[in-house]
């Protein structure tokens, strides 16, 4: 059994505010094997976005957060790494793509300049010309026909879909083992979003990248993921293979999610009824799933 790319065990997160402490994550566990596409699904405020940020290491810097639990990446315990080692992983071994591609790119620098920065993470000495050539190759891979024009452009000059491709290309530029996708394409319209996901599937298959896919959109998850974790108010409530989970959801919350009225635009967050006690029932794990090290 190979080492999982990502292993999370009992991850807890508390925010300290002026009015008191807020527990955001109550000890969640998940794992991703090499080449797997795993989705983390929940409403906004469920804790899925902070989980993504904890993995990439963006939240730990703040003085107001308290993190507990185990985060292991490619077998290495991230908690024991020095800040420099932790930092070295970002953009190289793991990378992230965000909701709105156009606003995630710096508006006053060209795409090419930003690509150069990204490539420099993998190869600090890389020169501009080499970087541009490599960037052009990467853009061609995501089916951008005129890489030179795109590289010379500013983000506001390109369409949302184009910027999304650019983001995907950037994220995979340094051949990371783990790609974290935080609600990708939510800001785009439905058709473009569908194309983007198709593209993402092809790319990660080709590169053998593991994916942690954060979403609230079940339809999208169904298309994309191998396994699904459902998260509710900072706890994992159900975990199973995509087909199983969608065919026979067993936890009340998952059922509620699936029943929720679908939005026409596909970008909306499902309407769940007010929280009921049954949403707090213990976690349900489907057959064949379960964390490494658990009893069967």
């Amino acid at each position, binding site marked *: 059994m190979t080492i999982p790319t990502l292993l999370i065990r009992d991850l807890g997160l508390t925010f300290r505010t002026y009015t008191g402490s807020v527990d955001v994550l109550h000890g969640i566990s998940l794992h991703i094997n090499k080449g797997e596409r795993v989705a983390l699904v929940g409403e906004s405020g469920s804790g899925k976005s902070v989980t993504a940020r904890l993995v990439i290491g963006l939240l730990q810097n703040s003085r107001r957060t308290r993190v507990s639990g185990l985060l292991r990446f490619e077998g290495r315990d991230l908690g024991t790494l020095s800040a420099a080692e932790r930092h070295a992983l970002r953009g190289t071994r793991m990378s992230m793509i965000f909701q709105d591609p156009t606003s995630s790119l710096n508006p*006053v620098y060209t795409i090419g300049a930003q690509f150069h920065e990204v490539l420099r993470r993998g190869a600090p000495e890389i020169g501009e010309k080499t970087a541009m050539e490599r960037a052009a190759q990467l853009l061609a891979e995501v089916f951008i026909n005129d890489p030179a024009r795109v590289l010379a452009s500013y983000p506001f000059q390109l369409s949302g879909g184009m910027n999304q491709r650019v983001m995907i290309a950037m994220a995979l530029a340094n051949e990371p083992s783990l790609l974290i996708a935080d609600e990708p394409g939510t800001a785009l319209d439905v058709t473009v979003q569908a194309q983007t996901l198709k593209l993402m599937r092809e790319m990660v298959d080709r590169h053998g990248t593991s994916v942690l896919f954060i979403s609230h959109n079940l339809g999208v998850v169904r298309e994309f993921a191998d396994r699904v974790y459902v998260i509710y108010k900072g706890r994992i409530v159900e975990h199973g293979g995509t087909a199983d989970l969608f065919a026979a959801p067993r936890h009340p919350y998952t059922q509620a999610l699936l029943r929720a009225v679908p939005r026409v635009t596909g970008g909306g967050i499902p309407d769940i009824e007010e929280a009921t006690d049954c949403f707090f029932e213990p976690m349900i794990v489907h057959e064949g799933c379960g964390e490494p090290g658990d009893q069967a």
Partner: protein
Amino acid sequence: MQSVVRLILKRLGISLVVLVGVSMLIFAIARVIPGDPARIALGPNATVEQVEALRQRLHLDEPLVIQYGHFLADLARGDLGISLYTNRPVTADIAQFLPATLELIFLSAVLMIVIGLPLGVLSARYRDTWIDSTVRVVSILGVSAPSFVWAVILMLLFSYFIPIFPIAGRISTNFVIPDVTGFLLLDTLLAGNLAAFGSALSHIVLPAFALALSGIGQAARLTRSNMVETYDKPYIEMARSYGFPERRIAWRYAFRPSLIPSLTIIGLDVAAMLGNAFLVEAVFAWPGLSRYGVAVILRKDLNAIVGTVLIISAMFLIANLIVDLLIAFINPRIRLSQRAA
């Protein structure tokens, strides 16, 4: 490129209209005040005939609109009238005193940008730490006192108690430098006289700082608040997720987008220095246009007042225009949409 030219022309046109408005405003104010300018100029001992003669010459008995017409006609010929204070053409006075003020303002502007902006970046990067607090206090202090207070304090500290810098004037009187540009720092270099350059430099340091302190404070605070806003933007989070070094994020990634909203206000500040130079020039006996301006205002020297205010307002407008052009240049969104237009 041609759309940039069009932009400049359009702005120049608007500025011209505004300038005409300014001239009308000042003209009206100057002519409508109580008291007889001719009598004030000639003093209480002048005879009635002398006053009358001067009144004729200055067209003071004609309707206001006609007077304004005379004024415009003269202006078209480049004649701003004679100053009753120096008995010279106002244009000559301006030509003599303007470079001194411009030099002072230029140096102050440089100080403001070179010190103020980096302070703002540091303040934002080390937000909520002692660095941030210190810069904040210093900035607000800088803004809180009029330039003449700073001028006095700086003079006390660095000319008297710790005598490093000279007290007054532009350059030590030992030196005689040929007047090429009117900018002493340049002229001394052009004349190859390094000792004179040093003297000119040491004379300009304190006044420039006194004038710049308020602008430095403003620039630092503005930069800080813009950077703090920028730091919340998604593209900064993305940069961090890629592991870009924090220093690089501060000075390259976050700084440039923050600069754009600051530029307008910084430009206004530099232009406002034109007005504030009065105070510093008074304290340091700096022979500039502002000091001249104060003198002619106190003497109700109408021609000189109108001429000086007009020139200063024109420079104000030019400064604003330059700033707007700079913004259009730096902000790719504006630059490129102009091209597309």
